[in-house]
Protein backbone atom coordinates (compact mmCIF):
# COMPACT_ATOMS: atom_id res chain seq x y z
CA UNK A 1 0.00 0.00 0.00
CA UNK A 2 1.27 3.40 -0.93
CA UNK A 3 2.64 5.38 1.98
CA UNK A 4 1.49 8.99 2.17
CA UNK A 5 4.27 11.59 2.53
CA UNK A 6 2.31 14.81 2.16
CA UNK A 7 -1.36 15.27 2.92
CA UNK A 8 -2.85 18.62 2.02
CA UNK A 9 -6.23 18.97 3.65
CA UNK A 10 -8.52 21.75 2.46
CA UNK A 11 -5.67 24.23 2.53
CA UNK A 12 -6.37 27.96 2.46
CA UNK A 13 -3.56 30.48 2.54
CA UNK A 14 -4.17 34.19 2.85
CA UNK A 15 -1.48 36.82 2.50
CA UNK A 16 -1.91 40.15 4.21
CA UNK A 17 -0.18 42.74 2.15
CA UNK A 18 0.68 46.13 3.56
CA UNK A 19 1.02 49.26 1.51
CA UNK A 20 -1.74 48.78 -1.03
CA UNK A 21 -2.01 52.49 -1.42
CA UNK A 22 -5.00 54.60 -0.53
CA UNK A 23 -3.23 55.63 2.65
CA UNK A 24 -1.98 59.15 2.18
CA UNK A 25 1.19 58.17 3.94
CA UNK A 26 1.40 61.24 6.15
CA UNK A 27 2.00 61.33 9.89
CA UNK A 28 -1.43 62.94 10.38
CA UNK A 29 -3.27 60.15 8.58
CA UNK A 30 -1.41 57.50 10.62
CA UNK A 31 -2.35 59.26 13.84
CA UNK A 32 -5.96 59.59 12.72
CA UNK A 33 -6.06 55.86 12.01
CA UNK A 34 -4.64 55.02 15.45
CA UNK A 35 -7.00 57.39 17.27
CA UNK A 36 -10.05 56.06 15.45
CA UNK A 37 -8.82 52.49 16.10
CA UNK A 38 -9.32 51.68 12.50
CA UNK A 39 -7.60 48.91 10.60
CA UNK A 40 -4.94 50.11 8.30
CA UNK A 41 -6.70 50.93 5.05
CA UNK A 42 -3.72 49.81 3.07
CA UNK A 43 -3.98 46.16 4.15
CA UNK A 44 -5.26 43.91 1.46
CA UNK A 45 -5.96 40.24 1.80
CA UNK A 46 -4.84 38.03 -1.03
CA UNK A 47 -6.43 34.61 -0.98
CA UNK A 48 -3.59 32.72 -2.63
CA UNK A 49 -4.69 29.12 -2.01
CA UNK A 50 -8.43 28.45 -1.87
CA UNK A 51 -9.13 24.98 -0.60
CA UNK A 52 -6.70 22.48 -2.05
CA UNK A 53 -6.71 18.82 -1.02
CA UNK A 54 -4.46 16.06 -2.26
CA UNK A 55 -2.17 13.28 -1.06
CA UNK A 56 1.39 12.67 -2.26
CA UNK A 57 2.94 9.26 -1.75
CA UNK A 58 6.44 7.99 -1.21
CA UNK A 59 8.27 7.94 -4.51
CA UNK A 60 6.03 10.49 -6.19
CA UNK A 61 7.49 13.25 -8.28
CA UNK A 62 4.73 15.77 -8.69
CA UNK A 63 4.89 18.54 -11.21
CA UNK A 64 2.91 21.66 -10.36
CA UNK A 65 1.95 23.69 -13.40
CA UNK A 66 -0.11 26.83 -13.81
CA UNK A 67 0.11 30.45 -14.81
CA UNK A 68 2.15 33.01 -12.91
CA UNK A 69 0.32 33.94 -9.72
CA UNK A 70 -1.76 30.78 -9.60
CA UNK A 71 -0.32 29.93 -6.18
CA UNK A 72 2.31 27.33 -7.06
CA UNK A 73 5.11 28.82 -4.98
CA UNK A 74 2.73 29.54 -2.11
CA UNK A 75 1.69 25.89 -2.12
CA UNK A 76 5.31 24.77 -1.83
CA UNK A 77 5.99 27.23 0.99
CA UNK A 78 2.93 25.98 2.85
CA UNK A 79 4.10 22.38 2.45
CA UNK A 80 7.52 23.39 3.75
CA UNK A 81 5.79 24.74 6.85
CA UNK A 82 6.85 28.32 6.21
CA UNK A 83 3.41 29.81 5.74
CA UNK A 84 0.66 29.32 8.28
CA UNK A 85 -2.61 28.06 6.85
CA UNK A 86 -5.71 30.20 7.23
CA UNK A 87 -7.85 27.11 7.21
CA UNK A 88 -7.07 23.43 6.76
CA UNK A 89 -3.63 22.00 7.23
CA UNK A 90 -0.65 20.34 5.60
CA UNK A 91 0.68 17.11 7.06
CA UNK A 92 4.11 15.81 6.17
CA UNK A 93 6.14 12.73 7.00
CA UNK A 94 9.52 14.17 7.90
CA UNK A 95 10.99 17.48 6.95
CA UNK A 96 10.51 19.31 3.71
CA UNK A 97 13.34 21.28 2.11
CA UNK A 98 12.41 24.10 -0.20
CA UNK A 99 14.64 25.04 -3.08
CA UNK A 100 13.65 28.35 -4.58
CA UNK A 101 15.15 30.52 -7.27
CA UNK A 102 16.19 33.22 -4.88
CA UNK A 103 16.90 31.01 -1.90
CA UNK A 104 20.46 32.21 -1.73
CA UNK A 105 22.24 31.03 1.35
CA UNK A 106 24.79 33.62 2.44
CA UNK A 107 25.78 35.68 -0.54
CA UNK A 108 28.84 37.37 0.91
CA UNK A 109 30.44 34.07 1.88
CA UNK A 110 32.41 31.75 -0.34
CA UNK A 111 30.76 28.77 -1.97
CA UNK A 112 32.88 26.54 0.24
CA UNK A 113 31.52 28.05 3.45
CA UNK A 114 28.02 27.93 2.09
CA UNK A 115 28.38 24.22 1.47
CA UNK A 116 29.65 23.59 5.01
CA UNK A 117 27.06 25.85 6.64
CA UNK A 118 24.25 24.38 4.57
CA UNK A 119 25.21 20.84 5.55
CA UNK A 120 25.56 21.70 9.23
CA UNK A 121 22.25 23.57 9.21
CA UNK A 122 20.53 20.51 7.77
CA UNK A 123 21.72 18.68 10.85
CA UNK A 124 24.67 16.80 9.39
CA UNK A 125 27.62 16.22 11.70
CA UNK A 126 31.08 17.60 10.93
CA UNK A 127 32.21 14.23 9.65
CA UNK A 128 29.20 13.79 7.43
CA UNK A 129 29.76 17.29 6.10
CA UNK A 130 33.40 16.57 5.32
CA UNK A 131 32.40 13.36 3.56
CA UNK A 132 29.65 14.99 1.54
CA UNK A 133 31.71 18.06 0.60
CA UNK A 134 33.63 16.71 -2.45
CA UNK A 135 30.47 15.20 -3.89
CA UNK A 136 28.54 18.46 -3.54
CA UNK A 137 31.26 20.52 -5.17
CA UNK A 138 31.63 18.07 -7.99
CA UNK A 139 27.90 17.82 -8.55
CA UNK A 140 27.47 21.59 -8.57
CA UNK A 141 30.18 21.90 -11.20
CA UNK A 142 31.18 25.39 -10.04
CA UNK A 143 34.83 24.29 -10.11
CA UNK A 144 37.38 26.93 -9.17
CA UNK A 145 34.65 29.37 -8.17
CA UNK A 146 34.04 27.40 -4.99
CA UNK A 147 36.41 29.63 -3.01
CA UNK A 148 34.84 32.88 -4.28
CA UNK A 149 31.93 34.63 -2.58
CA UNK A 150 28.55 33.43 -3.82
CA UNK A 151 27.58 36.94 -4.89
CA UNK A 152 30.13 36.63 -7.70
CA UNK A 153 28.36 33.57 -9.11
CA UNK A 154 26.15 33.67 -12.15
CA UNK A 155 22.53 32.88 -11.34
CA UNK A 156 22.98 29.46 -12.93
CA UNK A 157 26.03 28.64 -10.83
CA UNK A 158 24.29 29.80 -7.68
CA UNK A 159 21.26 27.64 -8.25
CA UNK A 160 23.45 24.65 -9.09
CA UNK A 161 25.31 24.96 -5.82
CA UNK A 162 22.11 25.42 -3.84
CA UNK A 163 20.56 22.42 -5.49
CA UNK A 164 23.67 20.35 -4.82
CA UNK A 165 23.64 21.30 -1.12
CA UNK A 166 19.97 20.61 -0.57
CA UNK A 167 20.13 17.36 -2.51
CA UNK A 168 23.19 16.14 -0.62
CA UNK A 169 21.11 14.85 2.23
CA UNK A 170 18.42 12.40 1.30
CA UNK A 171 15.52 14.74 2.02
CA UNK A 172 12.20 13.19 2.84
CA UNK A 173 10.45 15.82 0.79
CA UNK A 174 12.19 18.03 -1.70
CA UNK A 175 10.35 21.08 -3.00
CA UNK A 176 11.93 22.50 -6.11
CA UNK A 177 10.60 25.90 -7.11
CA UNK A 178 12.04 26.71 -10.50
CA UNK A 179 15.47 26.22 -8.99
CA UNK A 180 16.56 24.40 -12.12
CA UNK A 181 15.32 27.10 -14.47
CA UNK A 182 18.67 28.82 -14.71
CA UNK A 183 20.81 25.72 -15.06
CA UNK A 184 22.43 24.76 -18.33
CA UNK A 185 21.67 21.63 -20.34
CA UNK A 186 24.29 19.51 -18.62
CA UNK A 187 23.07 20.48 -15.17
CA UNK A 188 19.49 19.73 -16.10
CA UNK A 189 20.40 16.21 -17.01
CA UNK A 190 22.33 15.84 -13.76
CA UNK A 191 19.53 17.25 -11.63
CA UNK A 192 16.97 15.01 -13.32
CA UNK A 193 19.12 12.07 -12.36
CA UNK A 194 19.42 13.30 -8.78
CA UNK A 195 15.69 13.90 -8.47
CA UNK A 196 15.04 10.38 -9.71
CA UNK A 197 17.53 9.05 -7.19
CA UNK A 198 15.79 10.90 -4.38
CA UNK A 199 12.47 9.61 -5.61
CA UNK A 200 13.76 6.06 -5.51
CA UNK A 201 15.50 6.47 -2.17
CA UNK A 202 12.29 7.16 -0.31
CA UNK A 203 11.68 10.82 -1.06
CA UNK A 204 8.84 12.76 -2.57
CA UNK A 205 9.65 15.56 -4.96
CA UNK A 206 7.53 18.54 -5.93
CA UNK A 207 8.64 20.40 -9.00
CA UNK A 208 7.36 23.81 -10.02
CA UNK A 209 8.56 24.61 -13.50
CA UNK A 210 7.43 26.60 -16.46
CA UNK A 211 9.47 24.33 -18.65
CA UNK A 212 6.79 21.75 -19.31
CA UNK A 213 9.21 19.43 -21.05
CA UNK A 214 11.09 19.18 -17.77
CA UNK A 215 7.90 18.32 -15.89
CA UNK A 216 7.04 15.64 -18.42
CA UNK A 217 10.46 14.09 -18.16
CA UNK A 218 10.72 14.15 -14.38
CA UNK A 219 7.26 13.72 -12.94
CA UNK A 220 4.88 10.82 -12.63
CA UNK A 221 2.02 13.05 -11.48
CA UNK A 222 0.97 16.56 -12.27
CA UNK A 223 -1.20 19.16 -10.56
CA UNK A 224 -2.60 21.94 -12.70
CA UNK A 225 -3.48 24.98 -10.58
CA UNK A 226 -5.45 28.06 -11.43
CA UNK A 227 -6.27 30.89 -9.00
CA UNK A 228 -5.31 28.84 -5.96
CA UNK A 229 -7.37 25.79 -6.82
CA UNK A 230 -6.72 22.46 -8.50
CA UNK A 231 -8.05 22.41 -12.02
CA UNK A 232 -6.90 18.91 -12.75
CA UNK A 233 -4.67 16.42 -11.02
CA UNK A 234 -3.52 12.95 -11.94
CA UNK A 235 -0.97 10.58 -13.39
CA UNK A 236 -1.77 11.33 -17.01
CA UNK A 237 1.06 13.85 -17.18
CA UNK A 238 1.06 14.32 -20.94
CA UNK A 239 -2.73 14.60 -21.15
CA UNK A 240 -3.04 17.20 -18.40
CA UNK A 241 -0.17 19.26 -19.74
CA UNK A 242 -1.77 19.27 -23.18
CA UNK A 243 -5.02 20.46 -21.66
CA UNK A 244 -3.20 23.14 -19.70
CA UNK A 245 -1.46 24.32 -22.85
CA UNK A 246 -4.70 24.39 -24.76
CA UNK A 247 -6.38 26.40 -21.99
CA UNK A 248 -3.59 28.92 -21.66
CA UNK A 249 -2.98 29.22 -25.38
CA UNK A 250 0.72 28.38 -25.27
CA UNK A 251 2.87 26.58 -27.77
CA UNK A 252 2.63 22.80 -27.50
CA UNK A 253 5.52 20.88 -25.96
CA UNK A 254 7.86 19.57 -28.61
CA UNK A 255 7.90 15.86 -28.07
CA UNK A 256 10.69 15.04 -30.46
CA UNK A 257 11.22 11.33 -29.86
CA UNK A 258 14.95 11.34 -30.67
CA UNK A 259 15.83 14.02 -28.11
CA UNK A 260 13.48 12.46 -25.61
CA UNK A 261 15.19 9.11 -25.88
CA UNK A 262 18.63 10.67 -25.63
CA UNK A 263 17.72 12.55 -22.43
CA UNK A 264 16.08 9.52 -20.89
CA UNK A 265 19.23 7.54 -21.58
CA UNK A 266 21.40 10.19 -19.92
CA UNK A 267 19.08 10.41 -16.95
CA UNK A 268 19.29 6.68 -16.50
CA UNK A 269 23.10 6.76 -16.55
CA UNK A 270 24.38 6.70 -12.96
CA UNK A 271 25.58 10.17 -11.99
CA UNK A 272 26.30 10.19 -8.30
CA UNK A 273 26.19 13.31 -6.19
Amino acid at each position, binding site marked *: *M*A*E*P*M*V*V*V*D*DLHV*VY*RVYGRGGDRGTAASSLFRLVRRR*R*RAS*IREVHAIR*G*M*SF*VAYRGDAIGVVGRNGSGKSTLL*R*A*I*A*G*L*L*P*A*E*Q*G*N*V*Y*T*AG*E*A*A*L*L*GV*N*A*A*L*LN*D*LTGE*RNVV*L*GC*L*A*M*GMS*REETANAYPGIVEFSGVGDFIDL*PMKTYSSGMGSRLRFAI*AAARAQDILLVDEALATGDAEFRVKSHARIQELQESAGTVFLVAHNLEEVELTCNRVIWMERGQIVK*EGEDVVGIIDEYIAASGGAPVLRDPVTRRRMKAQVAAPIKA
Partner: protein
Amino acid sequence: MTDQKTPLRARLGRAGRDPNAGRLAGPGQLRTTDLGVESTSGDGLSLADYAIAHGLRPSAERPSIPAYLRQLWRRVHFILAFATARNIAMYTEAKLGQLWQVLTPLLNAGVYWLIFGKLLDINRGIPNYLGFVVTGVFVFNFTQRAFISTSTVMTDSLELIRALHFPRAALPLAYVMIEFQQMLLSMVVLIPILLFTHEPLTWYWLLAIPALLLQTIFNVGVGLLAARLGAQVNDFSQLLPFLMRTWLYASGVLFSIQTLGHTVNSKIVALLEVNPAALYITLVRNALMSSQRESAPGTKPYNALRCAQWHTLGHAPGQPQKYQLYSAYCHYTGANPAHFWYYAIGWAVVSIIVGFYFFWRAETRYGRG
Protein backbone atom coordinates in the same frame (compact mmCIF):
# COMPACT_ATOMS: atom_id res chain seq x y z
CA MET B 1 -0.31 43.30 14.32
CA THR B 2 -3.86 42.70 15.44
CA ASP B 3 -4.83 41.71 11.94
CA GLN B 4 -2.39 38.84 11.96
CA LYS B 5 -3.55 37.37 15.21
CA THR B 6 -6.79 35.81 14.14
CA PRO B 7 -5.45 33.40 11.52
CA LEU B 8 -2.55 32.44 13.76
CA ARG B 9 -4.89 31.38 16.50
CA ALA B 10 -6.99 29.57 14.00
CA ARG B 11 -3.88 27.80 12.76
CA LEU B 12 -2.58 26.90 16.18
CA GLY B 13 -5.95 25.48 17.06
CA ARG B 14 -5.63 23.05 14.22
CA ALA B 15 -1.96 22.32 14.42
CA GLY B 16 -2.13 18.87 15.83
CA ARG B 17 -3.85 19.61 19.12
CA ASP B 18 -7.19 18.47 17.90
CA PRO B 19 -6.85 16.02 15.05
CA ASN B 20 -10.51 16.41 14.19
CA ALA B 21 -10.34 20.16 13.83
CA GLY B 22 -9.47 19.82 10.16
CA ARG B 23 -12.54 17.71 9.46
CA LEU B 24 -14.72 19.61 7.10
CA ALA B 25 -17.52 18.78 4.80
CA GLY B 26 -16.84 19.10 1.12
CA PRO B 27 -13.31 19.74 0.02
CA GLY B 28 -11.75 18.30 3.16
CA GLN B 29 -13.51 15.05 2.64
CA LEU B 30 -11.31 12.39 1.12
CA ARG B 31 -12.52 11.44 -2.29
CA THR B 32 -10.94 8.07 -2.73
CA THR B 33 -11.45 7.94 -6.47
CA ASP B 34 -9.53 11.13 -7.14
CA LEU B 35 -6.69 10.45 -4.78
CA GLY B 36 -6.08 6.79 -5.42
CA VAL B 37 -6.21 6.01 -1.73
CA GLU B 38 -6.71 2.34 -1.10
CA SER B 39 -10.01 1.13 0.23
CA THR B 40 -8.72 0.47 3.76
CA SER B 41 -9.17 4.13 4.53
CA GLY B 42 -12.87 3.84 3.84
CA ASP B 43 -15.34 6.48 2.79
CA GLY B 44 -15.89 9.57 4.90
CA LEU B 45 -12.52 9.43 6.63
CA SER B 46 -11.20 12.95 6.77
CA LEU B 47 -7.82 13.72 5.31
CA ALA B 48 -6.61 14.92 8.70
CA ASP B 49 -7.47 11.56 10.30
CA TYR B 50 -5.85 9.77 7.39
CA ALA B 51 -2.65 11.80 7.81
CA ILE B 52 -2.51 11.32 11.57
CA ALA B 53 -3.20 7.60 11.18
CA HIS B 54 -0.11 7.31 8.98
CA GLY B 55 2.08 9.18 11.42
CA LEU B 56 2.26 12.43 9.49
CA ARG B 57 2.70 15.67 11.43
CA PRO B 58 1.41 19.14 10.60
CA SER B 59 4.20 20.82 8.62
CA ALA B 60 3.98 24.07 10.56
CA GLU B 61 4.06 22.38 13.94
CA ARG B 62 6.28 23.73 16.67
CA PRO B 63 8.50 21.17 18.42
CA SER B 64 8.15 20.78 22.20
CA ILE B 65 10.69 22.64 24.32
CA PRO B 66 12.81 19.55 25.16
CA ALA B 67 12.78 18.46 21.51
CA TYR B 68 13.69 21.97 20.46
CA LEU B 69 16.59 22.09 22.87
CA ARG B 70 17.82 18.74 21.57
CA GLN B 71 17.64 20.00 17.97
CA LEU B 72 19.50 23.11 19.00
CA TRP B 73 22.20 21.09 20.71
CA ARG B 74 22.69 19.04 17.54
CA ARG B 75 23.28 22.31 15.65
CA VAL B 76 26.07 23.47 17.93
CA HIS B 77 28.64 23.14 15.15
CA PHE B 78 26.37 25.07 12.86
CA ILE B 79 26.10 27.88 15.39
CA LEU B 80 29.89 28.08 15.73
CA ALA B 81 30.47 27.87 11.98
CA PHE B 82 27.79 30.46 11.30
CA ALA B 83 29.32 32.84 13.86
CA THR B 84 32.79 32.43 12.34
CA ALA B 85 31.44 32.88 8.84
CA ARG B 86 29.56 36.06 9.75
CA ASN B 87 32.61 37.39 11.52
CA ILE B 88 34.70 36.83 8.41
CA ALA B 89 32.08 38.30 6.10
CA MET B 90 31.77 41.40 8.27
CA TYR B 91 35.27 42.56 7.46
CA THR B 92 35.95 41.09 4.02
CA GLU B 93 35.46 44.42 2.28
CA ALA B 94 37.76 46.31 4.68
CA LYS B 95 41.44 46.58 3.78
CA LEU B 96 42.54 46.00 7.36
CA GLY B 97 40.26 42.97 7.60
CA GLN B 98 40.01 41.23 10.96
CA LEU B 99 42.33 43.81 12.50
CA TRP B 100 39.22 45.95 12.95
CA GLN B 101 38.07 43.63 15.69
CA VAL B 102 40.89 45.01 17.83
CA LEU B 103 41.06 48.45 16.24
CA THR B 104 37.42 49.28 17.00
CA PRO B 105 37.71 49.02 20.79
CA LEU B 106 41.15 50.61 20.64
CA LEU B 107 39.84 53.64 18.75
CA ASN B 108 36.86 53.80 21.09
CA ALA B 109 39.18 53.95 24.07
CA GLY B 110 41.30 56.52 22.23
CA VAL B 111 38.34 58.84 21.82
CA TYR B 112 37.53 58.70 25.54
CA TRP B 113 41.17 59.19 26.45
CA LEU B 114 41.27 62.28 24.23
CA ILE B 115 38.07 63.76 25.65
CA PHE B 116 38.27 62.80 29.31
CA GLY B 117 42.01 62.42 29.72
CA LYS B 118 43.21 65.42 27.73
CA LEU B 119 40.49 67.90 26.72
CA LEU B 120 38.17 67.98 29.73
CA ASP B 121 39.59 67.92 33.18
CA ILE B 122 36.57 66.34 34.87
CA ASN B 123 36.41 63.36 37.17
CA ARG B 124 32.86 63.52 38.64
CA GLY B 125 34.37 62.42 41.92
CA ILE B 126 35.61 59.17 40.42
CA PRO B 127 39.20 57.97 40.80
CA ASN B 128 40.75 56.83 37.49
CA TYR B 129 37.89 58.32 35.49
CA LEU B 130 39.39 57.19 32.15
CA GLY B 131 39.57 53.55 33.26
CA PHE B 132 36.06 53.86 34.69
CA VAL B 133 34.59 55.13 31.42
CA VAL B 134 36.43 52.72 29.12
CA THR B 135 35.46 49.68 31.22
CA GLY B 136 31.86 50.87 31.28
CA VAL B 137 31.73 51.47 27.56
CA PHE B 138 33.23 48.08 26.68
CA VAL B 139 30.91 46.13 28.96
CA PHE B 140 27.86 48.11 27.87
CA ASN B 141 28.79 47.69 24.20
CA PHE B 142 28.62 43.91 24.60
CA THR B 143 24.95 44.05 25.56
CA GLN B 144 24.14 46.89 23.19
CA ARG B 145 25.69 45.20 20.17
CA ALA B 146 24.08 41.88 21.01
CA PHE B 147 20.71 43.63 21.22
CA ILE B 148 21.08 45.56 17.98
CA SER B 149 22.60 42.82 15.84
CA THR B 150 20.07 40.17 16.88
CA SER B 151 17.18 42.51 16.13
CA THR B 152 17.95 42.15 12.41
CA VAL B 153 19.20 38.56 12.31
CA MET B 154 15.89 37.00 11.27
CA THR B 155 15.26 39.40 8.41
CA ASP B 156 18.90 39.21 7.30
CA SER B 157 18.80 35.43 7.13
CA LEU B 158 15.34 35.06 5.63
CA GLU B 159 16.60 33.14 2.61
CA LEU B 160 18.49 30.70 4.79
CA ILE B 161 15.40 30.20 6.95
CA ARG B 162 13.23 29.59 3.91
CA ALA B 163 15.65 27.18 2.31
CA LEU B 164 16.62 24.88 5.17
CA HIS B 165 15.14 23.37 8.30
CA PHE B 166 16.94 24.09 11.53
CA PRO B 167 15.93 25.48 14.91
CA ARG B 168 15.76 29.21 14.27
CA ALA B 169 17.21 30.07 17.67
CA ALA B 170 20.57 29.01 16.21
CA LEU B 171 20.73 32.35 14.38
CA PRO B 172 20.46 34.80 17.32
CA LEU B 173 22.71 32.45 19.32
CA ALA B 174 25.36 32.70 16.64
CA TYR B 175 25.09 36.49 16.63
CA VAL B 176 25.57 36.64 20.39
CA MET B 177 28.61 34.35 19.92
CA ILE B 178 30.07 36.93 17.53
CA GLU B 179 29.58 39.69 20.07
CA PHE B 180 31.08 37.48 22.78
CA GLN B 181 34.22 37.09 20.70
CA GLN B 182 34.27 40.83 20.07
CA MET B 183 33.92 41.44 23.81
CA LEU B 184 36.88 39.16 24.57
CA LEU B 185 39.03 41.16 22.18
CA SER B 186 37.97 44.43 23.76
CA MET B 187 38.92 42.98 27.17
CA VAL B 188 42.37 42.29 25.72
CA VAL B 189 42.54 45.99 24.84
CA LEU B 190 41.18 46.98 28.24
CA ILE B 191 43.80 45.19 30.35
CA PRO B 192 46.81 47.30 29.31
CA ILE B 193 44.69 50.46 29.64
CA LEU B 194 43.86 49.59 33.25
CA LEU B 195 47.45 48.65 34.07
CA PHE B 196 48.59 51.88 32.45
CA THR B 197 46.16 53.86 34.64
CA HIS B 198 47.75 52.33 37.77
CA GLU B 199 45.18 49.65 38.58
CA PRO B 200 47.09 46.78 40.23
CA LEU B 201 46.81 43.25 38.87
CA THR B 202 45.16 41.22 41.65
CA TRP B 203 43.23 37.98 42.16
CA TYR B 204 40.06 40.08 42.06
CA TRP B 205 40.50 40.23 38.29
CA LEU B 206 39.32 36.63 38.05
CA LEU B 207 35.87 37.77 39.24
CA ALA B 208 35.45 39.46 35.86
CA ILE B 209 35.09 36.01 34.29
CA PRO B 210 31.86 34.96 36.08
CA ALA B 211 30.52 38.49 35.69
CA LEU B 212 31.05 38.44 31.93
CA LEU B 213 29.69 34.90 31.64
CA LEU B 214 26.51 35.94 33.46
CA GLN B 215 26.29 38.91 31.12
CA THR B 216 26.66 36.54 28.16
CA ILE B 217 23.74 34.42 29.40
CA PHE B 218 21.73 37.59 29.89
CA ASN B 219 22.62 38.70 26.36
CA VAL B 220 21.50 35.39 24.87
CA GLY B 221 18.08 35.90 26.45
CA VAL B 222 17.92 39.50 25.32
CA GLY B 223 19.10 38.47 21.85
CA LEU B 224 16.32 35.89 21.50
CA LEU B 225 13.81 38.52 22.59
CA ALA B 226 15.16 41.11 20.18
CA ALA B 227 15.28 38.59 17.33
CA ARG B 228 11.57 37.86 17.57
CA LEU B 229 10.60 41.49 18.11
CA GLY B 230 12.77 42.58 15.19
CA ALA B 231 11.26 39.91 12.96
CA GLN B 232 7.65 40.67 13.78
CA VAL B 233 7.38 44.33 14.76
CA ASN B 234 8.83 46.58 12.13
CA ASP B 235 8.51 49.60 14.41
CA PHE B 236 11.01 47.96 16.77
CA SER B 237 14.05 48.94 14.72
CA GLN B 238 12.91 52.57 14.72
CA LEU B 239 12.59 52.52 18.48
CA LEU B 240 15.80 50.66 19.25
CA PRO B 241 18.31 53.55 19.07
CA PHE B 242 16.29 55.54 21.63
CA LEU B 243 15.94 52.52 23.88
CA MET B 244 19.66 51.89 23.80
CA ARG B 245 20.57 55.51 24.43
CA THR B 246 18.22 55.70 27.41
CA TRP B 247 19.70 52.47 28.73
CA LEU B 248 23.21 53.84 28.29
CA TYR B 249 22.43 56.89 30.40
CA ALA B 250 20.57 54.84 33.00
CA SER B 251 23.44 52.42 33.45
CA GLY B 252 26.15 54.67 34.78
CA VAL B 253 28.56 54.28 31.91
CA LEU B 254 29.83 57.87 32.13
CA PHE B 255 28.99 58.60 35.79
CA SER B 256 28.82 56.63 39.01
CA ILE B 257 25.29 55.65 40.07
CA GLN B 258 26.57 54.60 43.49
CA THR B 259 27.51 58.16 44.40
CA LEU B 260 24.31 59.77 43.06
CA GLY B 261 22.68 59.45 46.50
CA HIS B 262 23.20 63.04 47.57
CA THR B 263 21.14 64.47 44.70
CA VAL B 264 18.74 61.70 43.67
CA ASN B 265 16.08 59.78 45.62
CA SER B 266 17.66 56.62 47.01
CA LYS B 267 14.89 54.40 45.58
CA ILE B 268 15.70 55.63 42.09
CA VAL B 269 19.39 55.07 42.75
CA ALA B 270 18.62 51.49 43.79
CA LEU B 271 16.53 50.95 40.66
CA LEU B 272 19.29 52.25 38.42
CA GLU B 273 21.83 50.09 40.22
CA VAL B 274 19.97 46.82 39.78
CA ASN B 275 19.26 47.34 36.09
CA PRO B 276 21.14 44.51 34.40
CA ALA B 277 23.54 46.60 32.33
CA ALA B 278 24.58 48.66 35.36
CA LEU B 279 25.01 45.51 37.44
CA TYR B 280 27.33 43.79 34.99
CA ILE B 281 29.29 47.01 34.50
CA THR B 282 29.67 47.49 38.26
CA LEU B 283 30.72 43.88 38.82
CA VAL B 284 33.36 44.04 36.10
CA ARG B 285 34.61 47.42 37.35
CA ASN B 286 34.83 46.11 40.90
CA ALA B 287 36.74 43.08 39.68
CA LEU B 288 39.26 44.90 37.54
CA MET B 289 39.66 48.28 39.29
CA SER B 290 40.88 48.42 42.86
CA SER B 291 40.10 52.16 42.80
CA GLN B 292 36.43 51.24 42.37
CA ARG B 293 36.45 48.70 45.18
CA GLU B 294 38.15 51.15 47.51
CA SER B 295 35.93 54.13 46.70
CA ALA B 296 32.53 52.39 46.86
CA PRO B 297 30.35 54.25 49.38
CA GLY B 298 29.83 52.29 52.59
CA THR B 299 33.01 50.23 52.35
CA LYS B 300 34.66 52.28 55.14
CA PRO B 301 33.09 53.39 58.46
CA TYR B 302 31.12 56.59 58.03
CA ASN B 303 33.23 59.71 58.45
CA ALA B 304 31.37 62.99 57.99
CA LEU B 305 34.47 65.09 57.39
CA ARG B 306 35.97 62.81 54.77
CA CYS B 307 32.62 62.36 53.07
CA ALA B 308 32.30 66.16 52.90
CA GLN B 309 35.84 66.41 51.55
CA TRP B 310 34.89 63.98 48.80
CA HIS B 311 31.87 66.16 47.94
CA THR B 312 34.07 69.21 47.54
CA LEU B 313 37.72 68.44 46.91
CA GLY B 314 36.97 65.04 45.40
CA HIS B 315 35.05 66.68 42.53
CA ALA B 316 37.43 69.57 41.98
CA PRO B 317 39.97 69.32 39.16
CA GLY B 318 43.64 69.16 40.00
CA GLN B 319 43.22 67.72 43.50
CA PRO B 320 45.07 64.55 44.55
CA GLN B 321 43.28 61.25 43.89
CA LYS B 322 42.94 60.47 47.61
CA TYR B 323 39.98 62.89 47.89
CA GLN B 324 38.15 60.95 45.15
CA LEU B 325 38.62 57.76 47.16
CA TYR B 326 36.95 59.44 50.19
CA SER B 327 33.51 58.52 48.80
CA ALA B 328 34.13 55.26 50.67
CA TYR B 329 33.49 57.16 53.93
CA CYS B 330 29.96 58.16 52.85
CA HIS B 331 26.85 55.97 53.38
CA TYR B 332 25.76 53.83 50.49
CA THR B 333 22.34 54.99 49.35
CA GLY B 334 20.92 52.68 46.70
CA ALA B 335 20.82 48.89 46.64
CA ASN B 336 22.99 46.86 49.00
CA PRO B 337 26.26 46.17 47.12
CA ALA B 338 26.52 42.80 48.89
CA HIS B 339 23.51 41.59 46.85
CA PHE B 340 24.81 42.60 43.42
CA TRP B 341 25.93 39.09 42.50
CA TYR B 342 22.49 37.65 43.32
CA TYR B 343 20.80 40.27 41.15
CA ALA B 344 23.25 39.50 38.34
CA ILE B 345 22.46 35.78 38.52
CA GLY B 346 18.74 36.52 38.73
CA TRP B 347 18.77 38.70 35.62
CA ALA B 348 20.70 36.10 33.64
CA VAL B 349 18.28 33.31 34.58
CA VAL B 350 15.13 35.36 34.01
CA SER B 351 16.41 36.73 30.72
CA ILE B 352 17.35 33.38 29.20
CA ILE B 353 14.11 31.68 30.26
CA VAL B 354 11.83 34.50 29.12
CA GLY B 355 13.83 35.10 25.92
CA PHE B 356 13.90 31.44 24.98
CA TYR B 357 10.20 30.90 25.64
CA PHE B 358 9.24 34.05 23.77
CA PHE B 359 11.38 33.09 20.76
CA TRP B 360 10.24 29.48 20.72
CA ARG B 361 6.56 30.49 20.70
CA ALA B 362 6.95 31.97 17.22
CA GLU B 363 9.30 29.28 15.86
CA THR B 364 7.15 28.41 12.85
CA ARG B 365 6.50 32.00 11.81
CA TYR B 366 10.00 33.28 11.11
CA GLY B 367 9.97 32.22 7.46
CA ARG B 368 7.12 34.54 6.54
CA GLY B 369 9.15 37.70 6.27
